[in-house]
Each structure stands twice: as structure tokens, then as C-alpha cells.
């Protein structure tokens, strides 16, 4: 069953071709599905299963382990406020409460206009820049209630608040589902080629150097 668009199907095949085993592509393809639709549908999982040669139950089994995959619609912007220890010490929980009262939703809920989903997130590796939050996984460091309000206002008015992140990141924040705005692309003529376990029982060619020079 076709779920991916023509362009995304091309990207899906490009991703699968990088791995010795197609199943390794399941998580990247779930991300691709989420990028296409904002969340992961049953149709998406069926298509991923076909492409990677596993059952759709296995795709769900893998996908449901990971927090970033959403199996129901979420807002265009997923706001993750960190409350783990470093952020908690400097007001992360207060920031989360502010976010909850400002947006009128609690952890895991989505605003009625479908714009924002709020989550209380575990450590997101910005501990020296606490308290922090992310919008679609784009960082806002050393944030306070004002930062939060400004970011929400900018997003509501359709502008990018990324320059308020204090990180050196710039440009637009892509809608929920899109992570990297740049894709890895391996040119065919530069590709070393994948080596599946069953295809090679010998050492790579450069390892011969070890023996050759030992003889001399």
C-alpha cells in the first residue's frame, strides 16, 4: 500500500540502500513518515513494513518504544520543556507551569487550534544553558517566561523565533516531523558500498598493509 509520496519514496529507497539489512531503516523511515504527515498513521507503518521486509506489527513494535514517534495527531509545534535536574535547579518546573497556564494545556495535550503540543521532557543536553525548552527540537537556551511568551507570539504570527534560541541556529522552524533540514546524500560514484555480514569473510584491502610491511 502506497503511503509515501513519490519524492519521499525515492528518499526511503536511498535510506534503505545505506544499510546491510533493510530493517535498520525502520526508525529513519518512521521519521520520514512523521515528516510527511506530522504523525505516524497505520498506512505509513504498513508501507514501511513492505519496504523493509518486516511485518507492520514489527514496525509498530519498534516505533512505540520511542518517545518522538506520535501515533496520533499533534500540534504543528511540539514544545518540550525540560524539568530534569539541571533545569529544575534553575526554574524548569516553573517554566513548565507557565507554559501550561499560558497555553491552557497540560503535559501531552494539544491546543484547540492545533498549533501547539506541550511536553514535560527529560534531559535534552543543554544543561549549562538551563532552563531550556525546544520547539520541534530547536533549542531555546537560558529561557524565562518572557522568552517563552515571545517565542509563542512569533510562532502564532507566522514568524521564526529561532534567533531567540541563543544557539547560532537560524532560519525557519520546520513543522513537527521534520528534523534535519539537510539530508545526507551519498553520490553513487563516491559510495564505498555496503558490506553485508554474509558477503565478506576477508579483511578489507587496506589491512593487507599490516602483513606486507612486516615481511620487508
Amino acid at each position, binding site marked *: 500500500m502506497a503511503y509515501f509520496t513519490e519524492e519521499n519514496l525515492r528518499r526511503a529507497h536511498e535510506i534503505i540502500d545505506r544499510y546491510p539489512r533493510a530493517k535498520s531503516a525502520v526508525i529513519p523511515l518512521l521519521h520520514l513518515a512523521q515528516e510527511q504527515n506530522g504523525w505516524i498513521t497505520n498506512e505509513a507503518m504498513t508501507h514501511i513494513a513492505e519496504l523493509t521486509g518486516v511485518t507492520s506489527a514489527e514496525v509498530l513494535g519498534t516505533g512505540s518504544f520511542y518517545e518522538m514517534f506520535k501515533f496520533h495527531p499533534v500540534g504543528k509545534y511540539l514544545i518540550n520543556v525540560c524539568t530534569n535536574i539541571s533545569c529544575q*535547579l534553575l526554574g524548569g518546573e516553573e517554566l513548565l507551569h507557565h507554559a501550561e497556564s499560558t497555553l491552557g494545556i497540560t503535559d501531552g495535550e494539544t491546543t484547540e487550534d492545533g498549533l501547539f503540543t506541550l511536553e514535560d521532557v527529560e534531559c535534552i543536553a543543554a544543561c549549562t544553558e538551563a532552563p531550556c525548552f525546544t520547539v520541534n527540537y530547536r533549542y531555546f537556551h537560558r529561557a524565562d517566561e518572557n522568552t517563552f511568551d515571545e517565542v509563542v507570539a512569533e510562532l502564532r504570527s507566522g514568524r521564526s523565533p529561532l534567533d531567540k534560541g541563543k544557539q547560532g541556529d537560524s532560519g525557519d522552524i520546520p513543522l513537527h516531523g521534520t528534523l534535519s533540514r539537510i539530508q545526507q546524500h551519498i553520490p553513487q560514484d563516491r559510495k564505498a558500498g555496503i558490506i553485508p555480514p554474509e558477503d565478506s569473510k576477508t579483511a578489507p584491502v587496506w589491512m593487507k598493509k599490516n602483513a606486507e610491511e612486516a615481511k620487508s
Partner: protein
Amino acid sequence: MNNSAPAFAAGYINNDGPKLITERFQFEDSFTLERFLNTGGYDGLRKALEKKPSEVHDEVREAVLLGRGGAGFPAGVKWGFCPEGVWPRYLVVNGDESEPGTYKDRLLMERDPHQLIEGCLIACYALGLSQCFLYVRGEMALAQERIANALNEAYEAGYVGRNILGQDFSVDIVLHWGAGAYIVGEETALIESLEGNRGMPRLKPPYFPAAIGLYGQPTIVNNVETLSNIPWIIDNGASAYKEMGSETSPGTRLFAISGHVNRPGVYEVEQGVTTFRDLFYGENFCQGIRNGNELKMFIPGGGSAPWFFEEHLDLPLEARPVGDAGSMLGSGAIVVMDETTDAVKACLRVVRFFARESCGKCSPCREGTTWEEKILRRIYEGDGRPSDIELLLDIGDNISPGPYPVAAFSDQNLEAVPFPPRQTTICPLGPSSVAPITSAIRRFRAEFETLITQRDSIPVSAAPIEVEQ
């Protein structure tokens, strides 16, 4: 003096010390191939390719480069665990940084992706690894972007892929990214995830995936910071590397100091010669505790590490003495808490993390961490029972038996002494939850007792219900 972090390298603070892996952070375009090549980039790779692969491995072994992911195992020794004559072998880069308090790998991936790529290539050359998978944490969108861009540049310029630098050396580096699971930072769970499965750790033995790893083949799993050190070591030699730091912990390390200090940040620190006191109070480092407050406690190596206190301030930043004192440097994550911190609340928050992130494979961890959180919460909320303190310690004992922390393999003289701890689980996640509990109860038992006795005087659950007339 206020040389705070430039906006483009958030968190990083230049402390005037030796810079092995953060030299390029001063440049706004540090992540581009152009800047990398202008600042000695890929020189280490060139030098490596002039040597025999085994000589490159010897150089890294000689440097005693300790793994920077948490366990602190020497990389050169780990590299030697690949069984002879079994091919192909793979390299998996652990960029799933998510230990509470840890912020260094994200910086290295965002600010200097080519340095990491160069480290990967040298490792592949030294060990005959056929393909490299660079596993970046799912939440790190900018890091994925910078690495994707760097790989595209490097492929185009002939540094990655077929016949690297025109030689008989061909390796693909594949950017792979996760989807939010702390446990995937455990190396066998990382491999499971990379194979497209739920990220649950594998049963040991084998203890190292170097024996049986990705697709059942020998696999080297190294941390981002570990690999980022390789280009410098090969370019300058192991002896130059060992001139810095101490004998058992040479070189520098990235430490992220967060919490109640005046100048939190990520610092590249020479190991062994710097103490926690230097780090917290030094003019070149964190410049003291906020508002001149007293230090209450600090976590020396990420959420999994037992807490340290004032009497530990003069310990050097070096794996062995920190291990001997009963904790670990772990992932270089130091969280400083001042006198205003509620020990029970801090303990609850760290334990909640482990409860949420337990993968559920082993019952002592799945059930244990969940109950630890529930019991701590009821104590914190004034609903605790007098038996709760002993109950918490007993649950901890079921996950990590014996006086905590005790190294599981104390006879093997591992670098980081209490790690891995004795455990009834497959991986150290469950035992990690015991660290904040034993630390907090041993030191601040009175705080727990006060909360519990308050409950006895004002029983919340038994409060009279006021009925409106």
C-alpha cells in the same frame, strides 16, 4: 572578565587551557569543511594512512585514551577485543547523549562535525572496519543537520567513501538518528536500535560488542568525544597527549558544569591537575556558587553517579581517585547544588528520570525504579510512612545488592572503580537509580525524616473533609 559563551557556541567557555578538541569553537563557521581544512583538518587522517593500521591502533592504545561515554574504559584496549579473522567489522558512533547533566557531544557534533568524521575514519582504518554508523540522538536536529552537511562535503571532496584520499581505503559513513530513548546510549541497546528494534540492552556475556555486535559481527562502539580526540592523538602523537593530564587519565576532557554556579558552561579541562574546587570557584572556570551560597552537594558524573559533598572538593578530575572515593566522572556532567536545594526533591527528580527511561526488560529495574519514584513522591508530598526510608534502601538493594556502590568486577582493576556496579539487571540503568537514593539518605536522612514526621502530625490523607452546610 566576562568571556562568556559566544552565541554560536552556546555553553562553551574558553578557559585558557590546552585545547585538543575545542580549538575550532572560536570560529563561527567551525562546522564547515573550508574552516576545517584551514585549521589542520584531516592532517591526522593523512598521517594515519601513511602508517600501517596496526601502528595507528598502537598509537591510540599507547595514549591511554579513556572512553568518554561514561564507563571510562580505555579505547585502545576496547579496540583490541575484535576477534581475529572475523569480517566484516563495523564502527558505531554513540551520539545518543542523554545522561542528566551531560552537554558535550551535542556541542562537538554541532560545532566540529568534521573532527568527529576524521576520528571515525582513523578508527576504521586502524581496525579494518568496513562501514561506520553515526548514531545521533533523535532530539538533536541541528547536530543531524551539521553532520549531514559535513558528510556531504566530505564525500564530495574525497575524504569519505570510495578510495579516500586516492588510496585503497574505502569506508561509508552513514548518518543514523534515534527517536528518543535514554537507554539507547547503552551500547548493546544502541545496536538493537540500529538494527531496527526496540532499544533494549542485550544479555551479557559477551560484555563487549567487539565480540558480537551489529548484525552479529564484531563492532566497535565509541562515544563522540572519544573519537573526536583521535585526530589530535594521531597528528601529534601519543607521547604529546600523555604530557597533559595524569598518568592514568591523560589529556583533556570536556566537563559541563551546570546548576548553582556563577558561570555554568562547558569547559575543556586538563585531567588530573584540576580539582572540583578549581572548577567551581576558579576565576577561569565557574567563579563560585551563586549569591555566595554554600555548596550542599554535587553530582560529579551525570545522574547515574553517587553524589559528592564539600569534603570531595579537592579531588582531582581523574577517573581513579573519583572512583576510589565512591563515585565516577561518568560522562563529564557535573551538577552543582547550593544550600537552598531540597535534597528529597532533587533525589526524586533524578529517580523519576530513571523510572521513565527504564526499558522494562528486567523486572528489578522496571518495578524497582517505578516504586522508588512513587515512594519518594509520597515522602516529598508529605504522605510518607516511617518505614519508607528503609523500604527505599531495600528496593535499591534488590537492584544493586550489597553496600552501594560496589564494583561488579573489582578484581579486574577497571579504570572507573565502582562502574559497572553490582547488579541484578542486564544494564546499569536500574543500579543508577540507587545512586541518588543512597547518597541523599546517607547524608540528608534528617530531611526525609522531617518530611515523614510532618506527615504524622498532619496526616494529609486523613485530613477532615469540610462539608459545606
